[in-house]
């Protein structure tokens, strides 16, 4: 039992944990306390429950993982924020509740966008599908993608030669947050955004 625990403590070395190092080097003299700490580190879970005893041994308690944060790349964040700003600068097509078919007005707006895109055939665009809040996060992602794909199909049918990508933000990026139809319709949209970096 003891040797198994010590071994698992050493395997934590692979993870590059500094305190696992010190635990291994002192495995012969390590108290029960240290063993349990390693155990917790290894599995991500707390040490197992041990039941009550009239002569209880001491159990070390540490905060559970996570005790780390994911690394953030500042350059990447700056680039993404610039790109997002650019994206917000293009036009929209709107949809009916729960639907992804284009309306007559939507088709008219797309015809205008297509004319502009034909003037700039090297520009790459991205169509983002969005939804109002009256659907679940998951299904709205899919509904938004359907809206974006429908918009892309129609744009391409108008004869543009630009590269057109699609993505979906579901209901995660609303343009307004009131809980009524005066706002909902604005969020049920496909948004045309210019991608950074010109040419194909």
């Amino acid at each position, binding site marked *: 039992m003891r040797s198994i625990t010590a071994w698992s403590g050493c395997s934590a070395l692979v993870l590059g944990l500094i305190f696992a190092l010190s635990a291994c080097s002192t495995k012969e003299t390590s108290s029960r306390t240290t063993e349990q700490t390693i155990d917790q580190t290894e599995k991500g879970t707390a040490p197992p429950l041990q039941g009550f005893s009239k002569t*209880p041994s001491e159990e070390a308690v540490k905060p559970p993982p996570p*005790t780390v944060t994911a690394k953030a790349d500042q350059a990447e964040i700056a680039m993404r924020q610039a790109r997002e700003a650019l994206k917000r600068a293009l036009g929209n097509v709107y949809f009916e509740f729960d639907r992804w078919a284009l309306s007559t007005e939507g088709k008219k707006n797309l015809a205008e966008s297509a004319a502009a895109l034909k003037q700039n055939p090297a520009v790459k665009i991205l169509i983002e599908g969005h939804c109002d809040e009256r659907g679940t996060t998951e299904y709205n992602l899919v509904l938004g993608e359907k809206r974006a794909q429908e918009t892309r199909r129609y744009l391409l049918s108008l004869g543009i030669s630009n590269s057109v990508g699609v993505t979906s933000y579901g209901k995660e990026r609303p343009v307004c947050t009131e809980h009524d139809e005066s706002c909902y319709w604005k969020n049920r949209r496909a948004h045309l955004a210019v991608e950074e970096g010109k040419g194909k």
Partner: protein
Amino acid sequence: MRRPVSLLALLLAGSAVFAVTTGAVEVFIDATRGAIQKIPIAVYSFKSAISVPGQFPADVLKADLRRSLLFDVADLERFGIRAEVNSQPGPEALQKAGEAGLAVQVWGALLPRGSEIVMEGTLFESSRGEVGRKRYVGSTDVVRYMVHRLADEIVFHYTGEQGIARSQIAFVSERDGAKEIFVMDYDGYNRRRLTFDASLNLAPAWSPDRRRLAFVSYRKGNDPRIEELDLITGARRPLVAFPGLNITPEWSPSGEELAFATSKDGNSEIYKVDKYGKRFERLTDHGAADLAPTWSPTGRELAFTSDRGGTPQIYLMSADGTNVRPLTYRDQQGSYNTAAAWSPKGDWIAYVCRDERRILKLCLISPDGQQWRQLTTGSSNDESPAWSADGRHVAFSSTRNGRRDIYMINTDGTGLERLTTGGTSNEDPAWSAP
């Protein structure tokens, strides 16, 4: 290991089950199903020789024991039981509590030890005296965790189950226009931020060993992908990064596989991949959208959302993608049913149902479709159900106080409790194993 609990056998004769373990007959509380008779328990203020007042661990312990739904935590004042301030209960108080029908009594002490502290807890039964004690050592910052362990030990002693007081809830919090991944204790304390992406992160999913979180990230390029974060090393890697949407990750109960949805084939389909992110297997093949898989506790089946019938509904299939059949029907459960979550006990599937007002609520349906009920009511939007490991609570997001926050509720609709504050909104909870 554990001794028979004869007193409680008597107390709970109506609801106890008998289990044979290593030759000995033991009595458990059957904690898996339905209403059970709760055990009356007395929790005394701890004796404290440190800066943390003794009432603090007692209050945390009472809240944990109440949430276990196994104990009836007594108001000692009401029984006229007054233990002396900052001391352990004397024989008189213990006897009075026993006579008042409080079958189980708990007390404890906080003691200094160098830069650390020691917490001791004692479990006592009125009919047979001390059952045993626990001793925990750590910094003053971990008193809550010590108490959570003690609470789970008490639950374990009487049920053989692990308890949920040590579990964690991962969630999505909106800050400065970005959605980031956070983790908190199951009672809403000790909130910790995991990502600083200034982007959109969604749908966290715990590995069963609590070591890793999978979630959806928009931080690279246009397509959301599924990434995995190691909660001990901080290492982060993409697991699923096909062109298109890669969403709704969910680990299998064994932790060997991850089910998810991707639109790489043109429309959203459900796939699974091994934990190394190498071997992919397609499970659905339909022109409509299939998404949001959730595993049965055996890992042999999946429930998921599909709009193949014209509106989104919950379907079931075997874990190899065969035997697809509907679980919810438009004419019975309404025109919009999504985001299924299979209880770890297997008896219920929670999901988001949308009522005639187009408001999202939570509903429960048994996997055989025979039982159904609405879990939440009111005019708020409730979504993203996530089960506690004991199958007795559901965490979810709700707009019931004007903004989106995370709440928990018991499966019988009682015990609503708000867990989050702060940020612009909090949503998408995922509840870890004990």
